[in-house]
C-alpha cells in the first residue's frame, strides 16, 4: 500500500482535550464562542472559541511557554501515546509544527508584564516561533525540527511537509501538528479588516459576516508503512496519499476570484494520490465564514468535482470550533481521519439558512462516508493553498 501511515492522533480544542472529546463534539454539534478575556484588547469584536482553562494539566516541562506551546505539547503527548511510540521512535522523530502566530500571545503578555529572566548570558532576543522546538525538546527528539508559518494553512502544510520527509526516507517517524492560541494582535487586525462575525463562525450561511477565531492544536504521528508494520503499530487510522500546494500570487487577503489556484491544489492532490473525484467520500473545506472565501471554495468544488459534487458530503469543522488559524488544517485533517475511521460524516452544526450561492452539500443529519478518500482544504492570507488527500488504510 502506498502513502504515509497515520498511526496516532491528538487534539485540544474549545471542546476540551482529547480526540474523543473532539469526536463527541462533532457528533453532538454543541459549541459557542465566548468573549476573549483580555482587558487590554480594545476591539469591536472579541469572540473566541477558547480552550477551557483547565482542559488538561500542562506538562511541568513547559516553563514560561505560552498557551500555543502548551496546546501543542498536549496534542503531541496524546498522539505519541496513541501511536504507542517507544523511546527510540520518540528520539528519532522529526517534528513539523504549523502555527501562524506562534508564541505571540506570550509575547503580548510579556510586553505588559515584563519579559522573563534570561539564562544569565545577557539579554537574548527570542523569536515568537519557538513552538516546534519546544515540542522536540519535550520529546527529547533528535530528528529535524521545522516550524512552518503559512498562516491559516500552516497545520496542513506541516502534515504535508512531514509526510514528504517520511516519503523521502529522511526519517521513519514524523510528528506533525498545528497549534494556535489567542493573540491580541491577530484579533485586532482581523477586527480592523472587518473580517470578524459578531455572532459565531457560520461558514456557507446566507448571513455570514466573517470568521471567529478559535484556539487549539492537533497532532498526527506519521510513519512509513514499513516502519509501522515492523514495530507492529497498534493501529493505522489512515494514510496521507497526496498533497497539492499552490499560491494565488494575487492579493494579500482576498482570494483569487476565479479560484484557479485552489482548483489546482485540489487537482494536484488527487493526482498525487492516484485518485479520481469519484473516490472522495467526504470533504473538510477551509470554509471560514468570510463571504468571498466560502463562495469561491464552493464554486471551485463544483468545478473540480463536477457531477459528483452534489453527492459528496462536506463537514465544516470551523462551524464547530471556529477558525483556529495555524492549527486549522491539522484539526481538519484529524477530523477527516476520524470520519474515515468511523465511516460516518456527522451532521453539520445547525447555523441557519445555507447561502444558495454556495452549492455544497452540508448534511444536517449524519451521513455515511461511503468512499475511502477524504479531501482536506486549507487556505491562508497571502494566497497560500493546500489540499490533502487521506485514505482509509
Amino acid at each position, binding site marked *: 500500500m502506498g502513502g504515509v501511515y497515520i498511526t496516532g492522533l491528538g487534539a485540544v480544542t474549545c471542546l476540551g482535550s482529547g480526540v474523543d472529546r473532539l469526536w463527541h463534539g462533532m457528533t453532538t454539534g454543541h459549541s459557542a464562542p465566548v468573549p476573549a478575556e483580555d482587558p487590554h484588547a480594545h476591539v469591536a469584536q472579541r469572540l473566541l472559541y477558547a480552550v477551557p482553562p483547565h482542559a488538561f494539566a500542562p506538562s511541568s516541562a513547559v516553563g514560561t511557554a505560552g498557551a500555543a506551546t502548551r496546546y501543542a505539547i498536549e496534542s503531541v503527548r496524546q498522539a505519541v501515546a496513541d501511536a504507542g511510540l517507544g523511546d527510540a521512535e520518540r528520539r528519532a522523530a522529526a517534528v513539523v509544527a504549523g502555527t501562524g502566530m506562534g508564541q505571540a500571545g506570550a509575547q503580548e503578555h510579556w510586553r505588559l508584564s515584563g519579559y522573563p529572566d534570561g539564562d544569565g548570558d545577557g539579554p537574548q532576543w527570542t523569536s515568537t516561533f519557538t513552538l516546534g522546538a519546544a515540542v522536540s525538546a519535550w520529546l*527529547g527528539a533528535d530528528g529535524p525540527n521545522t516550524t512552518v508559518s*503559512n498562516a491559516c494553512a500552516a497545520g496542513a502544510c506541516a502534515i504535508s511537509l512531514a509526510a514528504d520527509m517520511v516519503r523521502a526516507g529522511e526519517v521513519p517517524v514524523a510528528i506533525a501538528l498545528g497549534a494556535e492560541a489567542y493573540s491580541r494582535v*491577530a484579533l485586532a487586525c482581523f477586527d480592523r479588516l472587518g473580517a470578524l462575525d459578531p455572532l459565531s463562525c457560520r461558514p456557507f450561511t446566507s448571513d455570514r459576516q466573517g470568521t471567529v477565531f478559535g484556539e487549539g492544536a492537533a497532532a498526527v504521528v506519521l510513519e512509513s508503512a514499513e516502519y509501522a508494520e515492523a514495530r507492529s503499530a497498534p493501529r493505522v487510522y489512515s494514510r496521507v496519499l497526496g498533497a497539492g500546494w499552490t499560491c494565488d500570487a494575487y492579493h494579500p487577503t482576498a482570494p483569487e476570484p476565479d479560484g484557479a489556484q485552489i482548483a489546482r491544489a485540489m487537482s494536484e492532490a488527487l493526482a498525487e494520490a492516484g485518485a479520481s473525484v469519484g473516490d472522495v467520500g467526504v470533504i473538510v473545506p477551509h470554509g471560514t465564514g468570510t463571504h468571498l472565501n466560502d463562495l469561491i471554495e464552493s464554486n471551485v468544488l463544483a468545478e473540480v468535482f463536477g457531477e459528483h459534487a452534489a453527492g459528496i458530503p462536506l463537514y465544516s469543522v470551523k462551524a464547530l470550533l471556529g477558525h483556529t488559524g495555524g492549527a486549522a488544517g491539522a484539526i481538519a485533517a484529524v477530523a477527516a481521519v476520524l470520519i474515515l475511521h468511523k465511516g460516518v460524516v456527522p451532521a453539520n452544526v445547525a447555523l441557519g439558512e445555507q447561502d444558495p450561492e454556495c452549492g455544497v452539500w452540508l448534511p444536517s443529519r449524519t451521513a455515511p462516508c461511503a468512499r475511502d478518500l477524504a479531501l482536506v482544504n486549507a487556505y491562508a492570507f497571502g494566497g497560500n493553498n493546500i489540499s490533502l488527500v487521506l485514505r482509509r488504510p
Partner: protein
Amino acid sequence: MSGAALMITRCATVLPPEPRWARDGTRTSPPGWFDYKTELGPRGYKYLPPALHYLLTAARHALADGVGAAGVVLGTNSAVSALHAAMDRTVVQSHSAELSPMLAPYFSVNLAAGKLASEHRLTGFQLTLTSPRIAGLEAIQVAARALAMGRASCLLIAATEAAPDPAEPGADRGEEGAVVLVARPLSNVDASGAGVRSTAGSAGSSAALSGGGTCRARTFFVPPDAPHRAGEALAAAWAGLGLWDGGSAGGTSKWLRDGGSAGGISKWLPPDGGPRIVAVLDDSPVARRIAAALDGRARVIPAAAGCLEPLVQVAAALRAEREATVVLSASAEGNVATALVTPPGAV
C-alpha cells in the same frame, strides 16, 4: 538518507554596509542605509514592513535578466516582530480602529513571501519557515525536497529579517537585510561555463552563477537539556550530506564507534582538512557543544537574532572562486542546520 542537492544559478543580497556588527555583537547599520523608494520605486511600497522591502529588492536582483521561478521557500524569524509590537501598543493604548488598514494584513508573517509571490506571479507555492536561527538554511533542505518530489521546477530560497522592536530584550542584535537564491534541480542545469558574474546596486548585489553552484542541507535537533548529543548528531548530519565519502572510508563510522560525542571532529576529518567550515553560533549550551565538536576547525561568526546570517554565508560561499564550504548554525532552542555549498568553479 542523503539530503537532496540542488543547483543555485543566481544569488542576491541586500545588506547593510560592512561592518554590520560592533565588537560587542550589536547592530551598527547606519540610519537610512536602505531607501525603499530608490530600490523599489516611489509608489506602491510605502505600507510594507522593512523586511518586505529588503526581500523584494533582493528578489528583483535575483530575478533580473528574465530569470523566472515557480515558487518560494522563505525563512524568517523577525520579519514582523517590530510590526507586532507597534500594533499591540496601538490596540492596548487606543483601539484596533487606529490600526492602518494597509498594514493590518502584514501581521501575518507569511505575507512577506505572499507579497513576493504576487509581485513575480509565483503561483507554484510559497512556504514560510520560522524555525529559530536555522530557517534560512532549512529553506535549502525544504526546497531541495520539494524540487526532488516534483512540486516545482524552479524555486527561490530566501531569508529576510528586520530589526525587532527596540523594547524587546536583545533587540540590538537584530538582523536587517535579505538573501535570495534561485534554485533548480541538479538535472535541469547546463553545467558548462562555470563562473561567477557579479553586479552591485545601491543597496544590493547579485551574482549570476554560470554553470551553477550546488547546495545541500540537513537539519537536526539537539534537546537543550542534552547538549552532549550535539557532536554525534552533527556527525550523522554530515554523513547524510555525503561529506568525506561518508562512512565508506571509515571516518564517520569510526568517529561514531569511538564515541564522537565525547570528542571533537579532528580525529574524523581527513588529514588534508576537507572543506572550509563556517559556523554561525551563539553562546547557548547547544552552540557551545557544537563549537567544541568543531575542534577549532571552523571560522565562528557570532550569531545575531535571526536566521539571515547563515544564508548570507551560503551566498558568500557560492561567490567564492573554487572552495567548497560547510555552513552550520544552531539555536539556543535546539535547532541545528548545516549545508554543504560548492561554488561553480569547484563543481
